[in-house]
């Protein structure tokens, strides 16, 4: 049956709404870096996302551990975008970690021209148990004196960002 609702009409639904369809309980966050972060050559380094655009449920730690620890169990869409720069660099890598270990969701870019820079996006859906599971973000560059680039020109905006949202409760 189809019922049109218009103006100030109200309607009461008779059926129960499953918890995984309650859109109000969906932790979401978006974070970025306030400045460049120096890293060591060929060393997986956790990105210090120390600024937040939004963090609906205070699940992202942008002050100490730079990690996302959601409080609702379920499957999260995570998007990690970054750029690293290093003198004579020929390779950059990015990886999403869960509970301190690589998830296998990663990105690699190789080039023969030394000093190349690439912005890459790593995305995936990751299950979190809503209590102890946490997500972190790592970058790697094989150049000399590399750093994680926080922002490009006015057209690029923030070049290293992360965001995520619950897409299905457990």
């Amino acid at each position, binding site marked *: 049956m189809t019922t049109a609702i218009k103006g100030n009409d109200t309607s009461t639904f008779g059926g129960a709404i499953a918890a995984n369809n309650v859109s109000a309980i969906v932790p979401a966050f978006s974070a970025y870096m306030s400045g460049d972060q120096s*890293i*060591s050559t*060929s*060393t997986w380094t*956790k990105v210090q996302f120390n600024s937040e655009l939004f963090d609906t449920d205070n699940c992202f730690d942008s002050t100490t551990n730079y990690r996302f620890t959601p409080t609702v169990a379920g499957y999260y869409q995570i998007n990690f975008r970054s750029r690293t720069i290093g003198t004579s660099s020929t390779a950059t*890598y990015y990886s999403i970690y869960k509970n301190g270990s690589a998830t296998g969701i990663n990105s690699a870019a190789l080039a023969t021209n030394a000093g190349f820079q690439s912005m890459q996006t790593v995305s995936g859906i990751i299950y979190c148990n809503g209590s102890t599971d946490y997500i972190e973000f790592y970058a790697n560059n094989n150049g000399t004196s590399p750093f994680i680039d926080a922002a490009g020109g006015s057209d690029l905006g923030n070049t290293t960002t992360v965001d995520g949202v619950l897409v299905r409760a457990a």
Partner: protein
Amino acid sequence: MTLYDKILAVRPNLTAEDFMPHGNSTIVLQNDSDGKGDYIREWNHPTETKPTNAELDGVQ
């Protein structure tokens, strides 16, 4: 001097390829941004032994 540089100093037969995550990488360095600095997360090189802390500390 970074841990990467110190390792290359005490194990001169290693190359940059040994540290790169793709292909034949056998050495993994990591930094958890917790103030403790770089460390060797994995060392699986077939011929070169993992340097000791004393060796690394001795590099100027």
